[in-house]
């Protein structure tokens, strides 16, 4: 009764969800140079907004749309004071923002309380067998990821993408060239928060249950590791990084059954993750894939 294909399909669904999160972080950090250590906040806001609306009986597309809008607005809201700060302060502020949202959700019973929201309607019709359900979900996240990819693709391969790269390289120089850098940074924050929001909304209906404990700061760090693995400022790398990280995690879970180690496998896995980060920082700080070019300028 082993259904390894379900495990693999499920893994790819998560690769899709985290791929979208990685793209959104890549837009912020990889292309614009904004430190966002609170990615999980917008993921969480998307998930909760959508969950609340769909459990009230609204169809999923309204929930998704609301999730996108609310997390995008939250991104815009936090960006107003935050984007004036130094980059490392911005990182710490966003990290704390995520914790604030999580603690509020945990303590407010009308928002679900510590046990969160259960029974979120799934987008798959009831009565399908499990593998088919997974296939439907995988198809849906593929569509979502493709849309996010396309949005990111258009953004970074355009004059807009040139400006945000300029902000990353040298904000003052960009401003001296007539760009209202604040507006660009705020737009990027809003767009990538919207992406994180839809990832959250999708995850909510897939698991059909969300709890505040699912949104610990470590989730943000995970996304950072994925971006780092795949390559900064590379939107294909976002998916590669998500695939490698999640694949590593799942493979390690299975591998530990076949290895007899003198060391606790859970500890070992974390130590290896930490070492992997260090190795990348030392040997390939830019990640596996190279930065996406703005344009190829064929024929020029």
């Amino acid at each position, binding site marked *: 009764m082993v259904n390894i294909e379900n495990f693999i399909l499920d893994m790819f669904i998560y690769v899709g969800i985290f791929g979208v999160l990685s793209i959104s972080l890549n837009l912020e950090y990889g292309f614009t140079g904004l430190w966002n250590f609170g990615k999980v906040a917008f993921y969480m806001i998307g998930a909760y907004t959508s969950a609340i609306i769909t459990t009230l009986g609204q169809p999923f597309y309204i929930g998704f749309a609301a999730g996108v809008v609310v997390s995008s607005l939250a991104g815009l809201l936090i960006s107003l004071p935050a984007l004036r700060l130094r980059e490392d302060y911005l990182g710490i502020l966003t990290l704390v923002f995520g914790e604030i949202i999580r603690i509020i959700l945990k303590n407010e019973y009308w928002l679900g*309380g*510590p*046990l969160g929201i*259960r*029974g979120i309607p*799934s987008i798959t019709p009831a009565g399908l067998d*499990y593998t088919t359900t997974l296939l439907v979900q995988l198809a849906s996240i593929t569509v979502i990821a493709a849309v996010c990819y396309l949005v990111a693709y258009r953004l970074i391969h355009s004059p807009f993408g040139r400006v945000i790269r300029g902000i990353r390289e040298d904000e003052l120089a960009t401003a001296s060239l007539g760009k209202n850098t604040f507006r660009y940074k705020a737009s990027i924050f809003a767009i990538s928060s919207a992406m994180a929001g839809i990832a959250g909304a999708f995850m909510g209906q897939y*698991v059909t249950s969300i*709890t505040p404990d699912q949104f610990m700061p470590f989730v943000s760090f995970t996304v950072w590791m994925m971006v780092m693995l795949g390559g900064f400022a590379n939107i294909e790398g976002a998916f590669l990084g998500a695939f490698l990280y999640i694949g590593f995690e799942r493979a390690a879970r299975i591998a530990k059954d076949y290895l007899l180690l003198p060391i606790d496998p859970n*500890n070992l896995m974390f130590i290896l993750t930490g070492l992997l980060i260090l190795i990348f920082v030392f040997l390939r700080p830019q990640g596996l894939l190279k930065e996406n070019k703005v344009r190829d300028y064929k024929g020029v």
Partner: protein
Amino acid sequence: MTMQRGSNVKGIGTAAAAGLAVVLLIVGIAAGYFAGAATVAPVTTTQTQTVTSTKTVGAEATITQTVTQTVTQPVTQTVTQTATSTVTRTVTATATAAAGLPDKVRIGVLLPLSGELGAIGQRMLYGAHIAAKIVNDSGGIGGRPVQIVAEDTAAVPDKALDAVKKLIEVQGVQVIVGPATSVEVATIAKYLNDRKVPAISMSATAAALSNLAKQYGDTYFWRVVGSDSIQARAIADIMKQKDFKRIVTFVVSNDYGIGMEQMILAQPGIKERHVLAIRYDPTKGDYRTELEQVKAANPDVIFYALWVESGKIVFRQALDLGLEKIPTMGGEGMADEAFFEDPRAADYMVKTGLFGTRPTYDPNTYSYQIFYKMHQQLYGAEPSLFADYTYDATMVAILAVAHAGVYEGAKIKNALALTGQYYIGATGMKALDPATGDLLSQDYLIWRVELKDGKPVYNFNYGSWSLGAGVVWK
């Protein structure tokens, strides 16, 4: 969990014999169930059931065990009918191979083996291994050995989801013991329903989990521990009986603590006596100002709902701040000898005469002794909090597989409701409600921390509470 040391079971020569006995008991009960299923009253009313088992173990000894258990269904509060049935069986050691079972019967276990609850989770896992060893020592389920497949959840919902998917999809596990926390249960419940694999939790007590079956249309979540809603009732009754007029609740800010606080406040007659609610951050380790607030509220009792890790710090700081004159109450999580590791926490508990509720079970029963002895033998230590419940959850899972006769989640689930009624576990009778997966009844004993020979101990004979009888002091 703690227990009194002295054993009243005489005549068991070796632990192996004891193990064999239990398995025989289990198999016998299983067989007896199929033989006499029709004669058992449906568990819709309150019933008192006395189960007496007599069995012969080799040439060494004959053991007779009598367990009297009151099974009360909480939904029907007014007792309309009491049926007593006595089942006496003599079991012989014949094991028949179950054709529908695989070569190895895998029991999946989800526990926090790392993270904040890692230490306690590792020791809870002992319970599962003990259950498996006892069954395997006597030949497994119809000749098929039981294998424990443990996965770490770190008490993180996402990891629990990963872990349960690995168990079911990669290893084909069809019955699961765990997970430990209510949050994890809430996260994986839909998946269990989708995959039609039942999970039996040993320690998820949140009342809201009783709705899962209704929400998802089928009962794939079960628990061998009472829902907080029953315990809250017991606690409220005790508070009213003691006539506390200024109650302070001091709870850990998580699903257990906040849930407990909310459940107790929802009981009639408590809100008006409640003067202050404090929910604290378990990671903070600095509760002096919270405790100062408590002092200022001038309560006549502090009700604590906390886990041992942060709880010890709270108690120690309460003692340091001179709060030892205010009487204290607590929930089941505090009946744990791990509190005594910190002499100051123990001192506080003794000085304030901390008392509280805990699901009743008699550590003197044969069932508990089997578990206890095996634990001592294998791990050389006292069983820790919830190791016994893990043991029972595992036993219930094994029994259900034996009942079902096939290794298939949906059938095992169907067997669970019936299995539970006949399993007398280390922690008492495990009658499960097929509609919600909850323990049908839970009586509570009232314990109190006392000084005995200069050492702090739990007195488990301080009083008791049941739906019918209410609070009884001893």
